[in-house]
């Protein structure tokens, strides 16, 4: 199916398309699927008869019946390009694209997708094919995607941006906690003077830090969940795609909390440490 799709896209680059409303030929014309975007732009519906050709001049055009309209698989590398494509049965496509001097059955296809009874055998199956069919390269689907696919590159890019944002937020957080701790200098001094040990005060500060960081993390998650739908709707509208741009999964939420809470609590403790090293009298003195 995938090879048909790929070959279809290639062929469709030169497609000359003209919807016609013939009725007698609808019965015999082979079926095709058209993408939602193409159907919308050309006003096609299920049952429409269209003419496809591989040359822009429209020579050797053939008629096909639209059997269905499909939503193209979202592809980030084609973001911004309206996917006006047609899916044909492979024999129909080969009939259209075969040069006149090439006999039927001598064509080639770009790739063949194979569904195994047991997907765990993919590696062994690929090895067997490579050994038995010289000139054919078989790869398990995971490896065929390649390590530098657009998804993975974008993931690395977003991770780098996230790291910079976390660094900036940490620095600001430290500055803020230093100020807030300094504001409570006298209170800490009094606590020291009435006999509370440094460890006890530190535990209190740590607990306070955890509470504040926890509340902040929960607020951040709520904000992210609220904006998730908005961001997806905007970008899906902007690019006319079903691609999901933001998805806040349990793992993502957990990672955020695991970073934010310890970071917030640590910032509070680090900022308080210099203060707690001073004597109680010095802290309480105005």
């Amino acid at each position, binding site marked *: 199916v995938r090879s048909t799709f790929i070959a279809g896209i290639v062929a469709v680059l030169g497609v000359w398309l003209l919807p016609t409303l013939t009725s007698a030929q609808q019965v015999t014309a082979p079926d095709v699927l058209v993408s939602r975007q193409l159907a919308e732009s050309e006003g096609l519906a299920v049952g429409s008869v269209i003419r496809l050709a591989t040359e*822009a001049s429209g020579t050797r055009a053939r008629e096909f019946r639209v059997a269905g309209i499909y939503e193209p698989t979202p592809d980030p*590398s084609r973001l*911004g390009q309206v996917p006006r494509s047609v899916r044909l049965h492979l024999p129909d496509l080969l009939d259209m694209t075969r040069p006149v001097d090439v006999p039927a059955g001598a064509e080639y296809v770009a790739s063949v997708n194979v569904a195994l009874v047991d997907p765990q055998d993919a590696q062994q199956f690929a090895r067997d094919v490579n050994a038995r069919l010289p000139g054919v390269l078989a790869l398990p689907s995971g490896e065929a995607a390649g390590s530098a696919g657009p998804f993975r590159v974008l993931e690395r890019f977003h991770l780098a941006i996230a790291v910079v944002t976390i660094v900036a937020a940490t620095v600001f957080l430290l*500055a803020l906690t*230093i100020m807030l701790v*300094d504001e409570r200098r006298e209170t800490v001094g009094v606590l020291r003077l009435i006999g509370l040990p440094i460890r006890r005060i530190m535990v209190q500060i740590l607990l306070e830090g955890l509470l504040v960081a926890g509340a902040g993390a929960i607020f951040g998650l709520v904000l992210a969940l609220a904006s998730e739908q908005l961001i997806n709707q905007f970008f899906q509208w902007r690019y006319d795609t079903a691609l999901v741009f933001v998805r806040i999964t349990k793992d993502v939420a957990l990672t955020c909390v695991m970073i934010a809470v310890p970071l917030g609590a640590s910032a509070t403790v680090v900022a308080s440490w210099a203060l707690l090293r001073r004597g109680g009298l010095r802290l309480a003195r105005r």
Partner: protein
Amino acid sequence: MNALGFAWRSLVRQPARAALGILGVAAVGALLFDMLLLSRGLIVSMQDLLDRGGWDVRVSAGDLPGMGLRIPNALETADTIARLPSVQAALVIRTASAQIDRSPGGSKDPPLPGGSPPVSPLRASFQGVTTRSTNPAGSRLRAPWTILRGRDAEHPDEIVVDEQIASDAAVAPGSEITIRASCVADLEALPEMRLKVVGVAEFPFQTSNESTAGGTLDALKAACGGNAGDTADLILVTSTGDAGATAAAIRAAHPELRAATNNEVVGRLQQTGFTYFRQISSVLTTVTVSFAVLLITVLLTVSVNQRLGEIAALRALGFSRMRVVKDVFAESVLIVGIGGLLSLPLGLLLASGLDRILKGMPGIPAALHFFVFERQALVVHVALLAATAIIASLYPMRIVSNLPIAATLRDEVIG
């Protein structure tokens, strides 16, 4: 002492919080600067890459060259294009996939135990080119690659290779290589041919994970065993003046072909390809500026709240309302200004790292950059930081301007 000097002393008096505030602005500013570089970087870089070759118009059979559609009757088509009055020269480019034998010394594969090292062939693309021109100046135009060492390939038995092939196959100008080129399908039986390497070249549109060789169209046809046909992937055209008029003339002469000027190619890229990066740049710019405004506002507000007594005392000593407001504003300007200055080198450093990450995307030419420095980006960066300094200081300025002197001093004394 003026407001700026006074604000400087306020910052120096509390070095830890001042340094952290400035560092925070520097980090946020670096991200902001990078997003501004990203917003137009790809477009600027692509325009530069297209213009660098000296070719004004690109003619192809489909919207994108190399997507399966080829220009039929390529040489005749190029001849008719070259004869147009506004055309100086036309360059026909035909690409084929090729396998180049590695010399045993150049193989990086581990040797087999007790045997000779495996010599798996290098996979590369082979560009064959030929120039068509009725203009004496046009016929001297060079191929779409830059020679780094040696000279350009001029005869059917000569080839130029990129640095990757030169390194992997251990060849240099003067060496010979065995090449098997396929002009029709990858799976056909490939004929073998010996070609002389006469130069090492840089191919501007080559992606970072591919290897490319180049030569004359005759060399490519010979390498393909005469199985190349008379088709081309692309015809590059140099006009005598107006590229737009030349493209229109080509479209009129060959309505079945697509002819686009460099500006039109870039415009198409602006409308379709990689708009995602423009969008993400806009979103992150907005988020970054909002983040900076919020945090600097909080920093200044907390700082001002801690110094209310001090400010009230200054007012009581004769400092005017405007003067203390100026002090707060100057403090904001200093934090944002110093942080903003630091953000420039930091941003350029970060941009080079992010650029490396994004260039890992398949199909991106190695010479293309996502982050490109532009004066316009710097101006916008400065303007946004200036706006940040002003907006962030509005609330703390309001606090100090409305400060009741007597009540604040009394609270300070009693508290």
